[in-house]
């Protein structure tokens, strides 16, 4: 299972590296969304707002939707499903591989956008650095949930509007936990409690994905 997961993840990441969609399309989109958040707050409030963590996660959510959709489009390209079925790959391994690739992509985006939020939304650098582990855990949970909900929405062949509708209610608790732990890192408070929620969600989505991904891929 782990071997298949690593193979699938490497394949997805190789496609992303070669196509450079992440670099030239998704990253500029995330940066633009962050700038728009600053503009929405206005010049007086952008530098002093406590909304920084929430806006960071809002932008991450939009970016995650693009990345998840892209990951499923790769899987839905002609011949891919048939090839996977012919090879008899373990669905749990495929799920883990997709989630792993998504996690790497979201971590890269997350680190860049965190730097952007320090620059544009003036979140404190030390607080942001101490929030980094919790951000990484939340984004990992988002990746596991994203891989599962991406397959649920039709694996890149379903309508594009379906993925946000399906995934928003699942992402909402993750975003709340992430935002609270980020805020706690910046302003003080219960950092660990929210971090634990993200960790539990990560474990739950990985377990559910391993169990249910095969059902979704059944033909």
């Amino acid at each position, binding site marked *: 299972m782990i071997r298949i997961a690593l193979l699938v993840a490497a394949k997805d990441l190789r496609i992303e590296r070669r196509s450079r969609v992440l670099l030239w399309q998704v990253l500029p989109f995330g940066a633009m969304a962050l700038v728009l958040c600053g503009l929405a707050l206005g010049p007086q409030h952008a530098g002093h707002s406590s909304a920084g963590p929430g806006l960071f996660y809002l932008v991450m959510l939009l970016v995650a939707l693009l990345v998840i959709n892209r990951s499923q489009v790769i899987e839905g390209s002609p011949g891919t499903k048939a090839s996977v079925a012919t090879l008899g790959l373990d669905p749990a391994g495929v799920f883990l591989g997709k989630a792993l690739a998504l996690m790497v992509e979201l971590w890269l985006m997350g680190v860049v956008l965190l730097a952007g939020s320090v620059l544009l939304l003036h979140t404190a650098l030390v607080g942001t650095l101490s929030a980094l582990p919790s951000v990484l855990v939340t984004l990992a949970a988002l990746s596991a949930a994203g891989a599962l909900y991406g397959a649920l929405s039709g694996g890149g062949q379903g309508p594009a509007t379906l993925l946000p509708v399906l995934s928003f*209610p*699942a992402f909402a608790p993750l975003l709340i936990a992430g935002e609270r732990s980020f805020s706690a890192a910046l302003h003080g408070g219960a950092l660990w409690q929210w971090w634990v929620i993200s960790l539990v969600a990560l474990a739950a989505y990985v377990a559910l994905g391993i169990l249910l991904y095969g059902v979704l891929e059944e033909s």
Partner: protein
Amino acid sequence: MIRQLSQRLLGPVTLVLLVLTLWLGLWVTPSFEVQGNLARLVYVHPAIAWVALYVSFGTATIASALYLWRRTRSAVVDRVAHCAMEVSVVFIILTLITGSIWGRPAWGVWWAWDARLTSTAILGVFALAYLALRRANDDPELRARRGAVLALLAAINVPIIHFSVQWWKTLHQGATVFTPDHGLKIHGIQAWTLLISFIGFTLLFFWLLRARYRLEVLRDERYAASLEEALVQRRREGVR
């Protein structure tokens, strides 16, 4: 015989129990010490929430799990899951509306970002997402399988809603009926009215589920008949 009788009686018994709840709740039971007449919503809101979270969502989840298990996989359990989820949407919306009506005078706002309210709203969005997912897939088998998986994923939210008042201790009050050591908080005529309302709304769910299920069966039959008709017509065109 018994089945037919229970089916015939379901509607009238539901109606009688709901009218009885209304009469007892509004005229017979005394007003509450702190919240006065406002707290009479206790005879409606918890019963609706009980049906929304546990009865209807529980039915949809169990039916979905049965669908995913190969031995019990059938169109019947899929229909039950779908219909129960539709009824669940209605009850979740009613839960939020009655909660808002109670919250406005009690808390001063129609909506608060409270853990219980937020998690219930998320469950409502999950239920709507389930319906959207089913509409997006034309293949009945694929539709049923994906819907079943989503229902199981959404069910994780139910224990979160249940324990939210203990875990986060936000604005929403704790358990209405039972004390932490499983004793009753409400006694006498108030307890009886509450019990009747719980039974009445539970029966209302089953009545709505039955009606919706019959509609779904008719829809499927109509679809199959129109498909057959189209095939016959196509064959005739081919002969010409």
